[in-house]
């Protein structure tokens, strides 16, 4: 019921508030002194609260980077945990300033919902997890299976497409919260748990016996996950977009948390521009010249964020793969900061 209340209040806001959502989000953020960031209700590696209530994850780092760029302090973020069902309404109504919640970029979401995707911070694809005891080797053997997933996601539609295209029978059991999906799969309600492969790697640790389960080799969809902002505020759209690029660009240039102060004295004009020693990228964005310096100093570059949250040394053990920089054989390609 609390969910409906949230959505209803959002509708009420749409009815009563005259276009507050279109006002300058940057000015709002500066005035209130923090960035309100929509995150997941707990997905390890992406956005997950630890035992002390501190949020960590690759999506959380993006929120912190936006706060560092706009307010000069990465800790000035307030988090709104949102279910898949609530997330867009929360953003549309202005309840959050930016949605950084492992959200797939699709045409409908980009066009019909009044939203803009500011880039991709994780290239993912949907996969299947099954019990090893089933003896299944690939997804084409899943005919007749019960499949657990989250409702209102692209996952739900992809799995329908996949089973229909391969003429396989299936039963879809869709839950509102990720924790309930995991609990139901663990209780044996379903043979298969499907979501983005990064999600499978993360949620696996919530299962009773993680080692009894395996992820099948198939990747059945493209899931570019990225931060989302509202239509109609181009300045804020630019800020979120270039925050992401700044994290990628600094990795490409070898700037990291440890050496950023030393790099400020570098002779390389590219490094000088991104760190605000030269040029006026910061001014054009409506920010301080040292906006990107703050991001790298306080949050780190993209590679550091990746390794810290989802990389091979974390419990998720996700290889960099397509999320590597373009010059390392990946898809991450920051636009030139000049």
């Amino acid at each position, binding site marked *: 019921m609390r969910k409906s209340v949230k959505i209803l209040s959002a509708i009420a806001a749409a009815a009563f508030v005259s276009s507050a959502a279109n006002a300058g989000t940057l000015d709002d953020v500066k005035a209130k002194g923090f960035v309100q960031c929509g995150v997941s209700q707990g997905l390890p590696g992406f956005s997950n609260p630890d035992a002390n209530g501190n949020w960590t994850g690759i999506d959380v780092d993006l929120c912190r980077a936006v706060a560092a760029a706009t307010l000069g302090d990465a800790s000035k973020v307030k988090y709104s945990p949102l279910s898949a069902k609530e997330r867009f309404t929360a953003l*549309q109504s202005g309840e959050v300033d930016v949605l950084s919640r492992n959200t797939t970029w699709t045409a409908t979401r980009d066009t019909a919902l009044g939203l803009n995707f500011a880039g991709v911070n994780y290239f993912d694809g949907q996969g299947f997890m099954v019990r090893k005891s089933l003896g299944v080797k690939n997804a084409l053997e899943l005919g007749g299976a019960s499949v657990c997933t989250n409702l209102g996601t692209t996952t739900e539609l992809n799995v329908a497409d996949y089973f229909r295209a391969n003429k396989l029978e299936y039963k879809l059991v869709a839950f509102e919260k990720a924790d309930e999906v995991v609990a139901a799969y663990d209780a*044996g309600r379903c043979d298969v748990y499907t979501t983005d492969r990064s999600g499978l790697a993360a949620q696996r640790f919530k299962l009773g016996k993680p080692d009894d389960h395996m992820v099948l080799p198939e990747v059945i969809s493209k899931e570019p996950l990225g931060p989302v902002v509202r239509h109609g505020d181009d300045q804020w759209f630019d800020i979120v977009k270039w925050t992401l690029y700044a994290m990628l660009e600094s990795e490409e240039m070898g700037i990291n948390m440890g050496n950023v102060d030393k790099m400020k004295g570098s002779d390389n004009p590219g490094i000088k521009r991104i760190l605000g020693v030269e040029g006026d990228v910061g001014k054009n964005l409506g920010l301080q010249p040292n906006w990107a310096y703050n991001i790298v100093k306080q949050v780190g570059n993209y590679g550091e964020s990746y390794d810290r949250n989802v990389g091979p040394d974390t419990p998720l053990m996700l290889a960099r793969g397509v999320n590597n920089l373009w010059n390392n054989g990946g898809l991450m390609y920051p636009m030139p900061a000049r």
Partner: protein
Amino acid sequence: MAQGVSNSNRPAKPPIWNDPVYRALFFQFLVLGGVIALGAYLISNTLDNLARQGIASGFGFLDTTAGFSILMSLIDYSEENTYGRAFFVGLFNTLLVAGIGIFFATIFGFLVGVARLSSNWLLAKMATVYIETLRNIPLLLQIFFWYFGVLRNLPAPRDSAMVMESFFLNNRGLYSPRPVFEDGFALISWAFVAAIVIIIFMAKWAHKRQEKTGQQFHTVYASIGIIIGLPSIAAVIAGFPMSWNYPELTGFNFTGGIVVIPELVSLALALSLYTATFIAEIVRSGIMAVSHGQTEASYALGIKPGVTLRKVVIPQALRVIIPPLTSQYLNLTKNSSLAAAIAYPDLVLVFGGIVLNQTGQAIEVLSITMAVYLTISLLISAFMNWYNNKMALVER
């Protein structure tokens, strides 16, 4: 003469702005106009804001292909159907679980309510413990308990519990054989209809005869005989035009037969057990509202305790019971929207959840959903009011 006097004494008609009738009308129109203007402003402002933010609006989405599958459906549905059809799937699932819930909550609530008043100490205490425990635990927790608590202890499909090779119970649901009707089954259906008609006439006849002569007739036994007997005779005549489709384990799951999914069972169970506690208390208060003298008078006339309860106490108690019972039915129906927590595909999950998220048209989807719940509640309310009027004390 008196008429003339009063006429001449009446004061002159006041001017229209001082006339209380016109004044009242004027202010009512003013308020009504204000409400309409506010409504119009809200609607146009909403549409304005939606357009400015580039959010799609309108009800055209109902004709768009849905593309998602639904776990359980009472009507034919596949991914190729529209959002509009998905809406009806959700609506019927909501009505189904609410109907089942109301049916069992009523029966169980009446039994427990009477049991709590029983002179049998153990029975009364058990009823008290049941009521005080279940009505004081939040419903959502009870739903989770029945779902996850029971689900975890059920076997996997390959180790299903089995009765006579035709009923199977596992963590995917309860599977039972499905009757397949063949040519000539219509005869049996007609025999069934005929049996019901005969029973109605028989009951009327028995009632009249008892009023006239005082002789009783065993209507219940006769009815059971007719309702089983007639269709059976028809089945023999038609040569048993029916076969059974048995569930079979193929691959991961059973196919064929009828399946009752665990989500439906746990939701219906939690709703009925929870609401039954409230109904039990309503029934108890209703019975206690009937003066004890009525029971004593009935016993003094030599009427048996069972008949006393059925014919003397309960008809009088019903007048107290029905109005609060109506609110419990409404509560149960509205509480069924907690289904979303355990993946039972009711209206809120299918339409207010999946469709809302796939289309992003929150305002349209939620208005429709709210209108549906309002309509269902008003219909239940109207029916119960009608029943209440029928049951009300007829003054002679």
